């Protein structure tokens, strides 16, 4: 092993030099088009060489600090939460190939067809519902582009408004739980994913509300942007429609309470909901809940029979039943997580089962669809997980060399204004988001950024309302997620634009699509600044 001595110069004692070399080599490797995961994996080895010197690493085969790389990979491979990633992708792929989205669109459209900008609003609402079903984007934009875009263009909607609505709302998938971005953020930073989901709800809805308000205000100021469809003579209107809607709701409530009642009775029969010390009560499944459930059911029944009338409620049900399957899927996924039934991973698994069963009931599921979906799942999983493998190795090696602590201490000791540091971070996220996938950003940047944020004086974060110190990591995760919302739309590589381009009529160019995004990017930045100015909005439900 004489020649190893010749390479002894490769050892760099000082963390600062090491970090700078790391950064430069990283830029170089990404520039020459090396896959992100493998580039970081190689850099992990490079960091170890710089830290320990080639002598120590390669002197004995099978031993030495190089084993941390294998260890880091193994830790990722045996991470239970990571299993939820392929499952969520699988579920979204199945969902895409079922007619659930189309039926949901027609059901929503019935109620809002006479409102100014109705289809755009329907698109946003539908996007929120789909976002609550699955945690990834792409499929959503494609579906909305196929379903809503032709309708809006046919009615003569303003093209920019139509495009922006579809892509901005379609990107909500990773903002509203379940969200794959938050899952990865939670994994990298060891933050509770459930807390992240809860915290992201409100900001996600605020963003969606901004979109809808924008549509309403613009179309009402300038009605030519969103012409109303021809009135159908026999379509119900006004009060009649409201009654139909109440009929639908009460019938739906009846089903729901019936199900909950059976569930509670089942638990009572099996004795599983007996009140025990130290055991959390089953949500809506205890004996004491039964009267309330039954009461709610009775109210719904009374509404249906006396206010709406039987015939009308049947009609309302026919018009609205496209909303039922999505509600069931959301109930299964989010219900499992929040009612304490299962963890994230099993919730994702149950989501797959729910979509599959609904598909079977609708007689749409075929072996071909399942197989195609599995293929897409595997492809996406491979790309995402292998960035994780590389980045985990790099993070392990860099932490071993003391990098993150060094960077955090340097920045803290510079005594810069707290919000200044955060704003610079936001800028870095936005800039990187223009060129890099969110997964690379969360895995490579977060291990460096979050320690800095955690060391910042918490009382200086935000301008209105304080932030509980133990929720800083959660807050930063939601802020990061909002940044990534922008990255889906930001030129030149905003993926939403490319997804829409693939389904839009040929005369809509990529430039036109990005132009349509501008007001919506502004809305996203507005929502981001709300989170920065008033951080406690995130922890409201925690």
């Amino acid at each position: 092993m004489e020649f190893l001595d010749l390479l002894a110069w490769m050892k760099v004692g000082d963390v600062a030099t090491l970090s700078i070399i790391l950064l430069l080599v990283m830029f170089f490797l990404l520039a020459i088009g090396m896959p992100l995961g493998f580039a970081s994996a190689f850099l992990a080895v490079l960091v170890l060489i710089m830290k320990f010197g080639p002598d120590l690493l390669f002197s004995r085969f099978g031993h030495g600090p190089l084993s941390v790389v294998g260890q880091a990979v193994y830790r990722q491979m045996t991470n239970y939460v990571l299993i939820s990633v392929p499952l969520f992708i699988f579920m979204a792929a199945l969902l895409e190939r079922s007619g659930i989205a189309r039926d949901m669109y027609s059901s929503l459209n019935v109620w809002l067809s006479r409102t100014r900008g109705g289809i755009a609003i329907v698109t946003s609402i539908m996007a929120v519902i789909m976002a609550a079903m699955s945690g990834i984007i792409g499929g959503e934009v494609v579906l909305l582009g196929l379903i809503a875009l032709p309708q809006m263009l046919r009615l003569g909607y303003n093209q920019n408004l139509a495009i922006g609505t579809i892509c901005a709302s379609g990107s909500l998938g990773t903002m509203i739980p379940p969200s794959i971005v938050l899952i990865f953020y939670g994994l990298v930073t060891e933050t509770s994913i459930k807390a992240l989901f809860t915290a992201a709800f409100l900001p996600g809805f605020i963003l969606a509300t901004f979109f809808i308000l924008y549509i309403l205000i613009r179309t009402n100021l300038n009605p030519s942007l969103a012409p109303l469809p021809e009135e159908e003579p026999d379509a119900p209107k006004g009060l009649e429609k409201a009654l139909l809607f109440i009929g639908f709701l009460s019938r739906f409530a009846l089903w729901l309470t019936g199900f909950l009642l059976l569930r509670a009775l089942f638990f009572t029969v099996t004795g599983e909901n007996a009140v025990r010390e130290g055991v959390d009560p089953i949500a809506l499944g205890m004996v004491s809940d039964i009267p309330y459930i039954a009461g709610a059911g009775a109210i719904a029944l009374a509404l249906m029979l006396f206010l709406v009338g039987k015939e009308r409620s049947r009609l309302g049900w026919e018009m609205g039943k496209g909303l039922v399957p999505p509600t069931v899927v959301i109930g299964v996924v989010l219900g499992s997580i929040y009612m304490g039934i299962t963890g994230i991973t099993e919730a994702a698994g149950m989501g797959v089962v729910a979509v599959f069963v609904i598909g079977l009931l609708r007689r749409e599921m075929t072996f071909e669809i399942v197989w195609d979906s599995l293929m897409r799942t595997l492809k996406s999983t491979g790309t995402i997980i292998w960035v994780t493998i590389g980045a985990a190795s790099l993070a392990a090696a860099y932490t071993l060399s003391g990098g993150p602590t060094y960077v955090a201490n340097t920045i803290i000791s510079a005594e810069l204004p707290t919000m200044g540091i955060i704003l610079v971070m936001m800028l870095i996220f936005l800039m990187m988001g223009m060129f890099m996938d969110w997964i690379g950003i969360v895995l490579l940047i977060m291990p460096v950024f979050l320690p800095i944020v955690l060391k910042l004086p918490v009382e200086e974060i935000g301008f209105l309302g304080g932030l509980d110190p133990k929720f800083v990591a959660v807050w930063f995760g939601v802020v990061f997620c909002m940044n990534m919302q922008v990255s889906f739309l930001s030129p030149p590589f905003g993926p939403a634009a490319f997804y829409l381009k693939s389904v839009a009529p040929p005369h809509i160019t990529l430039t036109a699509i990005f132009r349509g995004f501008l007001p919506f990017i502004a809305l996203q930045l507005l929502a981001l600044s709300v989170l920065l100015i008033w951080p406690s909005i995130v922890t409201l439900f925690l």
Partner: protein
Amino acid sequence: MNSESLWLGGMRRPVRLAMLVFIGATLLLYAWLVVNALLFEDAIDMFDMIRPKGRFVVLAMLASLAGAILLASIYFSDTRGAIEQEADGFFDIVSLVTSRLSMIMVACIVLVMLYEVVSRYVFARPTLWANELSLWIAGFLFLFAGQYAMQQRSHIRIYVIYDMMPRWMQKTADVLSLNLLLFFTFALVWGGYSDAMRRMMRLETFGTAWDPPLPGTLKPAILIIILLVTIQAVSNLIADWNKEPEHHSPADEIDETEIDKIRKTLGT
């Protein structure tokens, strides 16, 4: 599934037949095990399944299950999916077989989870093995997924500068990337070999109630499958060497056939 054969050719029908036989045998054995488990207290359970100790039924079950999954992977690797790249490298077939294997694994994880949730919440009898089994399967799934992504050239890369380079420079960059990957694999094996070998020899277990030999299998698998990924990378470089430069955009992620199929479901 009547499309063109990728590599099996005349062997396709026999493989299909063998697959069906093995699946049938697995189902029969499974039914036998379930009936036994319902009738007898000391029937073979999941604990015995990973500790055969010469019991014939367990060995037969494991063998037929392995055979069924393997043959199914081989059979399905013979058809190219609509979203897949053409297989033209020397190593592509291996990656396609492992990809089919892991696609089946995804479905298995879903089934295992369904089983666990149903037995825990409906029958109030949680299993000891479901979590660990899905963890075990997923470890292999994640690793094989990378091999598949490599074969499909779908690993995340940044093409902004790469696309601007002339072809000879792209080739240089590719060779450099490949060498760095080779170096990483070399370093990984160098550092992890003893650890992985030791655990594999002892078939080190997870230290839980069901106690599967998870570290003992997964640790060596990490080294082996990363090696396979590297071989696939070499195969890709050779296969792509004389191809024309492509222009990359995020639109590559989207497949026309897939969109047509979605369109058909939507009836537009």
